């Protein structure tokens, strides 16, 4: 397509010889250093391909041996080294000591938040909100096994009714109907009495009959007035928090067939420092009890 290179009358410059519909292009040459800079970037790219993994070919790893995964691992090791002194301190401290030290406490709260999200939130929900069907809220003030720092830590360490930890919290509630300890009518009466403990009985006569049965069968664990016993993991039946539902059908089911929530032992899975951080974090969710 280039035609004739002419000198433009107005500017005194040459044209490139290109012409479109009578429009000719002036030649405005690029400085040579510009094109040399471009060549330099090509050389740079070639060097890059030799040094680093740049080609989508198996084995084209680059002579420096650099990998994205290796860089991440290096960074993780570096971060772990940075955290090591803090984690050592957390490992050796009691939860009370951690809470008393502002630096340790802040570290434990931040680390506990992450560890909780990774390990606990699956059952207990984000922020410890709990879930229906036996996953207790950790943000309220109702504790089955105790809400003090040490009690929370022990529950995390050993878990509840699991088979992997000798020290797991292990008490079981009898299945009053299934095991033949109570008859269906008696279960109904006890349920009415239990509802009455929180002021919700619908049948005063049945509740009255249930009181005696409750004293005989339940009070040894749940207490005479149903306030619960944390040593036994027997929940408070007189409050407004119901782990398995507080309507009559749910209470009847609990008495008849019992409930036995399970939680794994975490001392076998997590670093003691992480368990300590989790205890401090859970304690600070809003329901932690003072020493």
């Amino acid at each position, binding site marked *: 397509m280039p035609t004739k*290179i002419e*000198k433009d009358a107005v*500017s*005194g*410059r*040459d044209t*490139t*010889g290109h012409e479109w519909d009578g429009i000719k292009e002036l*030649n*405005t*040459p*690029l*400085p*040579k*250093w*510009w*094109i040399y800079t471009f060549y330099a970037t090509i050389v740079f790219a070639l060097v890059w391909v030799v040094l680093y993994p740049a080609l989508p070919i198996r084995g084209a790893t680059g002579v420096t041996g650099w990998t994205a995964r290796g860089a991440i691992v290096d960074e993780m090791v570096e971060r772990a080294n940075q955290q090591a002194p803090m984690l050592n301190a957390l490992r050796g401290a009691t939860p009370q000591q951690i809470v008393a030290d502002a630096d340790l406490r802040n570290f434990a709260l931040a680390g506990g938040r992450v560890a909780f999200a990774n390990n606990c939130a699956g059952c207990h*929900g*984000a*922020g*410890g*909100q*709990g879930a229906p069907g036996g996953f207790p*809220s950790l*943000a*309220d*003030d*109702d504790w089955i096994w105790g809400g003090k720092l040490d009690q929370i830590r022990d529950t995390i360490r050993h878990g509840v009714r699991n088979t992997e930890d000798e020290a797991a919290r292990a008490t079981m509630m009898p299945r009053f109907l299934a095991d033949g300890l109570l008859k269906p009518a008696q279960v109904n009466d006890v349920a009415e009495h239990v509802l009455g403990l929180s002021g919700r009985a619908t049948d005063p006569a049945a509740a009255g009959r249930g009181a005696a049965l409750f004293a005989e069968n339940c009070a040894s664990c749940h207490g005479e007035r149903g306030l619960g016993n944390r040593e036994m993991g027997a929940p*408070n039946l007189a*409050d*407004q*928090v119901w782990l398995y539902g507080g309507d009559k059908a749910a209470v009847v089911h609990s008495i008849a067939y019992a409930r036995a929530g399970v939680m794994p032992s975490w001392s076998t899975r997590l670093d003691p420092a992480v368990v300590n951080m989790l205890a401090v974090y859970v304690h*600070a969710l*809003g*329901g932690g009890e003072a020493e």
Partner: protein
Amino acid sequence: MGRIDPADRTAPPPEPSLYASRQKVYPRAVQGRVRRAKWAILAFCLALYYLVPWLRWERGPGMPDQAVLADIANARLFLFWIEIWPQEIYFLTGLLVLGAIGLFAATSLFGRVWCGFTCPQTVWTDLFMWVERKIEGDRNARMKLDAAPWSRAKLARKAAKHAAWLAIAAATGGAWIMYFQDAPTVTREILTGGASLETYFFFGLFTATTYVLAGWAREQVCTYMCPWPRFQAAMLDENSLVVSYRAWRGEPRGKAKAEGIGDCVDCRACVHVCPTGIDIRDGQQLECIGCGLCIDACDDVMRKLGRPAGLVAFETLANLAASEAATTGLAPGPVRQVCGMKARQPVRFSRPRTWMYAGVLGAVALVMLGAFLLRDTATLTVLRDRAPLYVRLSDGALRNAYTLKLANRRRGEAALALALDAPQGFRLVVQDSETDAAGRPLLALRPDGVTQWRALVTAPAGLRLAESTPVRFRLLDAEGRTVLSERSVFLGPK
């Protein structure tokens, strides 16, 4: 390349190439009014650049005492008594907007004064050329030296020049670092080898760019790299004062003693002093940075010839056209000169364009000033916990949790009491806080920092609540006045 030597117009067309070698420019030294102004501005700009990091400003214990400091590590920008936090970076944006509009306004009034007088590329190139002239001599000596074969003397001169350039470049790169780190400390660290790798990297980077851009690239930066010359034409109009050759007076050019010849004696002094190597007599062109050195060069020649100065001058295109029209047909000589100058109108600085720039400039400046004067010295942010939305307590009460963030830009220690505007019976507890005499939580403010608190609000059992109840957190000073307040909601079951 736009530079065409008039002598080349008759030469046979060269073999066309899409790439051209750079024509090295050897600007000659020049004296005069514009040059003096340029030296003064150069001295001022360089002094500002090199000395500002050394200004001290007492800010109290634990705070940097450098007057101007961009503290990246601690995310603070210090400007004397002003302290900018990252979330206030729009002040910096506003300054850049002001700078851009100011540039447009200055260009529409006086042409490319920024390029010619204050642009760092021009200032440092001028400084480097001054050093070059001191070591290698003026234009002719430099051309001769470059053309001469390599010898010990030539090598010595070239080495001395590049050493001096590198020294200036290193000082420039070092000064740049000082805007980001404490100047005395980082200077000592750089000199003793104790600075961080990043510091040396940026020190080297800015040293190298200064050396390359001001020593080697020079006018190539303005012509090929800088976007500003490409669209400056949009700011210019026929009433802008730009460096112009008064062709109506100078043409036809020729020998001083020849008959019927204009005032231009074609001595090429204007071309020889030009830092971008162009001929101003070709008219407005992209490469002209508006430095006005050709004015000084031409005035000097005119004075020697006993002719009026101002053959090359800061002149508007409108006046050029008026003079041209008034002198058409007049023979060269004093009459033409007087008629042409008489036809000039006073420069119209007051134009819709300049008023618009002034208006926008004033509006942005006012908005920024207002925002700056009204900016809070402390801010309260309330984040409601979303998991759980609410907590049912054993006695049937409902509880919501909130994260309060208190950013305090003042430096004094202070504590503010937190009050809650909510329906009767709501209780407010802030974890880890002390309480004042009235039982309200006291939130300690960290000087120049952010503190975070977790507030628990409990609605008593039995209260009939809508799903969402508006609440308001208020921070009270010691006299009980509300300093800050922030709205939120209290959520309950549907």
